[in-house]
Every structure is written in C-alpha cells, then in structure tokens.
C-alpha cells in the first residue's frame, strides 16, 4: 500500500479498505443472521368454529322499530340476534336497548343483557337485569320485563326497584299502560314500599 505524505490521502486509502468490509458485513446479516422462515407453521387464524357460523345465521346490530297502535314509536336495538330455528318469527338477541317515544313526548329507555323478540306474538321479553328510565325521572330496575310491540304496554311480572323524585321504592310488580285520558300510568302492584328523605333545606 503506497505511502502518502498528507493525512487526507492516508485517510482515503484507509477508507478504501474499511468501507467495503463494513458493506460486506452488513450484507451478510441479510442472510446469516435473519430468522429462518418456517414454511410448515400455518398462518395464525381465529379458531371460531367455522361450520357453526355457517349453519347458524346471525344478524349483527339488528334494529327493530315500529309504531304502536296508540302512536308511540318503539325501536329496539341489539348487538347481535339469532333467529330461533324452531319458530321463524322469534329472535333471541343479546345486549338490547329499547327506546319508546310516546305521543306526548315522553321517552322511555330500556336496556337489558339479553332478550327475545317475537314479532308474530308482538312481544319482546327482556331479561338478565333490565333498567328502564321514564320521562318523570324514575329509574326502574327489574330482572325481567315484557314489552308489547303493538301497543305501549311495559310490564315487569317480577319484583322491581325504582328510584325517582318521590323517593326510592320497591314493589311486587310493575306495569306501564296508557290511561284513558291519553297519558301514561306507571302502576306498581302487589305491595309497594317507598322511602322519601325530604331534602334538608
């Protein structure tokens, strides 16, 4: 290797040796160090039973809406629904949210974990912990509620607990029906116990 008198030439000649070696090393990592691709391992995929999915039709985010005979707009949304193989007009759904708007402007919100909607019978049964909020500020919780689809009739056969302006109450059963003069009556039956704590002013 010839000898140069100035440092720059010496630096260049040194670079001429070092740089190609570095390039060679860099290139080799591409083949030597790289992870071996194992063709036998298959592509990871979700292990949902595919034929179960194919056999059972499932609607995601179904939305049932209609108007009841006394003019209340009812709409029920769910996260997923499965038609009942035995009875065509029955659908069992999960995570339902119902919305009922009465002609006088009152809105009722229903939400429950699971439920069945039977359009032929015109009935929706919500269970697994149902919460209803009424326009007068009552929040009613019950474990099962049946809602008629043709007319405004929300009923809870089982015991209910409600919190509202008149205090907290629990009752044997509950029913919401239109009264004769057009507005709606929320009726709690067989045994009502209410506790009202006057706000200390």
């Amino acid at each position, binding site marked *: 290797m010839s000898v140069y008198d100035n440092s720059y030439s010496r630096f260049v000649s040194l670079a001429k040796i070092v740089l190609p070696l570095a390039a060679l090393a860099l290139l080799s990592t591409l083949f030597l160090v790289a992870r071996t691709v194992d063709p036998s391992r298959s592509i990871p995929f979700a292990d949902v039973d595919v034929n179960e999915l194919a056999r059972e039709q499932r609607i995601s985010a179904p939305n049932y809406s209609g108007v009841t005979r006394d003019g209340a707009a009812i709409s029920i949304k769910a996260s997923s629904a499965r038609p009942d193989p035995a009875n065509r007009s029955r659908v069992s759904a999960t995570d339902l949210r119902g919305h009922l708007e009465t002609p006088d402007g009152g809105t009722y919100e229903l939400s429950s974990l699971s439920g069945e909607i039977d359009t032929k019978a015109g009935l929706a049964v919500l269970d697994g912990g149902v919460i209803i909020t009424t326009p007068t500020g009552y929040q009613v919780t019950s474990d099962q509620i049946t809602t008629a689809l043709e007319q405004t009739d929300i009923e809870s056969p089982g015991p209910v607990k409600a919190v509202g*302006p008149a205090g907290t109450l629990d009752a044997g059963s509950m029913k919401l029906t239109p009264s004769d003069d057009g507005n709606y009556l929320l009726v*709690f039956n067989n045994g009502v116990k209410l506790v*009202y704590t006057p706000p200390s002013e």
Partner: protein
Amino acid sequence: QGANVAFGALKHDSSLPVEIAADQLQINQETGKAVFSGNVEVGQGEMRLAAARVEVEYEGGESSTGKVQRLHATGGVTLVSGAEAAEAREAVYTIGSSEIVMTGDVLLTQGQNALSGQKLVVDLDKGTGVMEGRVRTIFRSDSGN
C-alpha cells in the same frame, strides 16, 4: 273557637325519611303525580298515618322533579303519634311545615278522654293540636271505683 290540645308529646323531626307502604302506586307519567291506594301506611319517626288513599303532591304544582310538598290522604285517615290517636275522613300532611290538617268529623283520643270536632290542626314540631268546629269532649272521671 278551638280547643288546644297536646299532641304527641315528644319532639317530631320533620327531616326524618318518610316511609310509605301501600298495595298499589300509580304514577301519572305526564304530571308526575303519585297516588298510593290500598291500605296505605305513612310513617315518619314516631308518627304513623294510615289511610285508604294517599296522593303525593309536589312543590311548584305539576313539576315532577320538585320536592314533595304535601301528602293528601283521603278515605278515612287514622293518625297515631305517641299516646294520642286521631281519626278523620281526610288529612293533609305538609312535610315542610310538618303540619297535619285533619278534616271531616275528627275524633281525637288521648288515653282516657276523647275529643271530637270538625277540624284538627296538628303541629308535629311543637307537639300541639287545635281542634275546631263543634268541639265535644268526654272526660271520664274515674269515680274511685
């Protein structure tokens, strides 16, 4: 003219929670008025009031989210507080001023003696009652038997 009467000697606290038990409760979803029916019992502290029907009326008329102002009991009312008991056809209990106004042939019994009239105004806080309207009273003088 009215007869002053002590009613429920002990001091009644009107901020205690009011408990109402009944067979049925109807809440009108438009006006928010709540009506208890079917042997209704209203209890607050020492005071017990039983009636066939009790209506809950809110402050500010029809606003349903306001404070409960008055309980309007009808259909034969019995009020018991401490040793005294009073019966009447109707009663209105104003929670704010803890005052009960009973009307319709009121009969008030205190231990041995009884007092009857048309209207009884009971102030639970002061423990006093004023009976008005044709007040008749019966004193049993125990003649040493």
